[in-house]
């Protein structure tokens, strides 16, 4: 595999620029990341980060609403944006000779988004429709309830999309103030991966970005989730096709020395992930949870979920309860798998398998520049982009004892929130 090294550059206005040349296809991807997400939101204004993200597609004086999408399409590109708990990101992936367009769009909308009042109103119902679309899924109700119970003092408590009442009450000024607070070069990271020459590229970047003024320092949230003092339980009773189970354990953030061991624990239970913590291929069927729950027909599907976060977050186990079984049985079976690791640890064979799986997931992920840039940007938001080049080594350095220890330390009853979705039939 060609070693693609990421290079870092900082403009005088403190915009961090990360570049990686990849010449295997005439394609380039341009991402801009802002250090703001639902983690930066306060009570009563939930969903403001996501809504601001939507407004960045609604025009600037230079590129009125609708023009951006036409320009990207006309140039053979794809684009989107997303908001997470810890960051907000926007990207365009284009034929390599069209890169200027992406740079132009991102420099323009960092400072000049219109937030026209009538566009804000129209977007309100679009976002409410997005919320309703998620609410059609039973899992959304369970996931929201588990998070709300697991986090009492930290904003990971609320869903990224926000609460309906807050979305109905949000004003144009709330949105614009949020935009003005967080959208500035010193709070942004520009990531470019693809078929370019770095020297030429940096000149283009300076052309578009160097004159953007740096803003004041950005407020940093100080919320911390206190140490849990006992298990929490939530039950959702709603119409649904099956019973579902989701449990979360409070685990450290991705800068903690135990992070790699927790990631390996996740892989032992549910199969290894790529460096964006998604899965390029299925790896769960040979892993412990599937073997213990699906192969025994207690559950029709099961898995673990873990991803790197800025603040301590949840390590999750989930399952869809099979028709002839009860949620309690499945809960006990999930916990039994955790206890086995706490008592007996994991095997050398499992660790070897996981490292090979991670290597494969990394290789598949590197086939697309879009995915590579996502990985680089995500890690810079959470810690440092260099983690993309050291994480495999971190995982390889994890010993069996480390996995057992983190299971004993973090996957405890005291740190758990257990949620059941119980279908109520069709009485409504």
């Amino acid at each position, binding site marked *: 595999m060609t070693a693609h090294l990421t290079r870092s550059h900082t403009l005088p206005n403190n915009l961090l620029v990360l570049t990686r040349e990849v010449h*295997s296809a005439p394609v380039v991807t341009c991402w801009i990341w802002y250090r703001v997400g639902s983690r930066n939101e306060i009570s009563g204004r939930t969903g403001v980060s996501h809504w601001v993200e939507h407004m960045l597609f609604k025009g600037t004086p230079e590129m009125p609403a609708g023009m951006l999408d036409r320009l990207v399409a006309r140039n*053979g590109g794809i684009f989107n944006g997303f908001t997470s708990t810890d960051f907000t990101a926007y990207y365009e992936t284009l034929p390599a000779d069209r890169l200027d367009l992406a740079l132009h769009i991102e420099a323009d909308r960092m400072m000049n988004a219109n937030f026209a009042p009538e566009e804000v109103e129209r977007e309100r119902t679009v976002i409410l429709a997005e919320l*309703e679309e998620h*609410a*059609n*899924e039973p*899992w959304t109700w369970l996931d929201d309830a588990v998070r709300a119970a697991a986090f009492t003092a930290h904003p990971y408590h609320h869903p*990224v999309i926000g609460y309906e009442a807050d979305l109905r009450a949000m004003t144009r000024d709330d949105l614009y103030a949020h935009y003005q607070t967080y959208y500035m070069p010193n709070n942004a990271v520009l990531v470019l991966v693809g078929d370019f020459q770095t020297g030429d590229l940096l000149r283009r970047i300076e052309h578009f970005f160097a004159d953007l003024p740096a803003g004041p320092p950005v407020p940093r949230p100080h919320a911390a989730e206190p140490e849990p003092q006992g298990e929490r339980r939530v039950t959702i009773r709603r119409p649904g096709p099956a019973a579902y189970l989701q449990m979360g354990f409070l685990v450290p953030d991705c800068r903690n020395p135990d992070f790699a061991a927790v990631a390996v624990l996740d892989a032992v239970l549910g199969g290894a992930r790529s460096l964006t913590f998604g899965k*390029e291929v299925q790896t769960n069927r040979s892993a412990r949870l599937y073997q213990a729950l699906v192969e025994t027909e207690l559950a029709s599907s099961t898995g673990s979920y873990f991803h790197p976060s800025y603040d301590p977050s949840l390590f999750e186990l989930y399952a869809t309860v099979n028709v002839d079984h009860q949620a309690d049985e499945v809960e006990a079976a999930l916990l039994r798998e955790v206890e086995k690791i706490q008592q007996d640890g994991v095997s050398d064979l499992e660790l070897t398998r996981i490292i090979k799986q991670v290597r494969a997931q990394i290789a598949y992920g590197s086939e697309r520049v879009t995915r590579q840039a996502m990985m680089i940007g995500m890690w810079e938001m959470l810690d440092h982009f260099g983690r993309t080049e050291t994480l495999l080594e971190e995982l390889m350095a994890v010993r069996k004892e480390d996995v057992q220890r983190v299971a004993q330390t973090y996957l405890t009853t005291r740190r758990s929130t257990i949620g059941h979705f119980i279908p109520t039939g069709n*009485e409504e």
Partner: protein
Amino acid sequence: MMRDTRKVNTYGFMAYPALPPLFGTNSPGPVGGLSSTTRQTLSNGMVVLVLNNPSSPTVSLCGAVGVGAIHETADRSGLADFTASALIRGTRSRTYQQMITETEARGCSIGADAGNHLSGFYGKALSEDLPLMLEILADMLVHPTFPEPEMEKLRNQMLIDLREYEEDTGMRTTRALRSLLYPPDHPYSRLSFGTIETIQNISRDDMIAFHQHYHPAATSIAIVGDVQPEAVVETLERIFGDWNPPETSLTRTLPDVPPLSGVQRCNMTIPGKVQSDMVMGVHGITRTDPDYYAFLLGNLILGQLGLFGRLGESVREKQGLAYHVSSSLQAGLGAGPWVATAGVNPASVEQAIQAILHEIERFKREGPTSEELSDARAYLTGSMVLVLESNAGLVSTLLDLEIYGLGLDFIERFPDIINRVSREEIIAVARTYLSTEDYVVAVAGPPSSSATCAA
């Protein structure tokens, strides 16, 4: 059929929902482009397409056998998909446990499923593991044993998925739309993964019998990655060479589809829902129909380009009614429908339907603007490089070229094909197919008094 049904946002909330890519999967890495593909027919009739793409140490594979849901009877609906999904559940030389252990231990993935006309198989591996992946694939395609206990486990998993579909607004509207668009004896009137009832009825013997129709002469396979094409062809000849089952003639003439007459509508209620899904549709065309490229451009402008075309502009951007709204042309080996879909608040369903009809009517009357047409052409031809960036994009494109007989020089010819389609042809196609008087609509959402059908 292998789904993780837990739908929770992994990375966060997207500004716009993802649309399925227009070509194969997603994004020309290989030196010499697709024209340098080695295309060979093995001694048993199987067509093999292999392309060297040294840009990453991986290999992707996808292929298809010419059997699918159109070859099932109505009371065994889902048989093709059940059979394909069962291939990995045990062969003469491997148990299911061995299959998943051997593949997953290498980060290698293999699977199979079935649609209306084809049963597809696919795989991904590090190049060093290609020999193992091919060996397992051959084992699955040629020597599956459909072991009884595994079939029951798989059946139960499929039944849970089907129960979830019963309460999924998108699935219910799609199924209702199909039943309104096609007569009951037409396989397109059903969904290819069957129903709770038919999946319960399918026996192991049904699967063994259906598998007899898998034939190398009806099979194509595409392989792209860091591989040596001659060596791959030799390996395939060795491992598939003894696959020479007796010729089975499986022909299925699809019944005539009576033209739609008036508006047929189905409203369904599902407890616990807060949003309604609506789908409207008309009869469409096959991928090889002469009208295809005009329809492709028309659909792009109407319901996809930029942020979901004119439908997105009207229903989402101007009226704020929906987060997702778009249209799709489902043209394959058979003539699938053209459909427009939106997720809206129950109180806004009629407004959304009227808005979509209005945009279709306006498009038929005025046609695309010259700017829209040049944007659509530029998008289709410009974005080809994104489609052909990855091995996965390359294999699915190669397989499409083979299945539809488009030729390995298609990518070079494509810009010319697209640029020759005139504005008048697009208008003519829209006027021919996109009726605003004779169409079907299906809506599924929260309980209300308006349930009018039980599809």
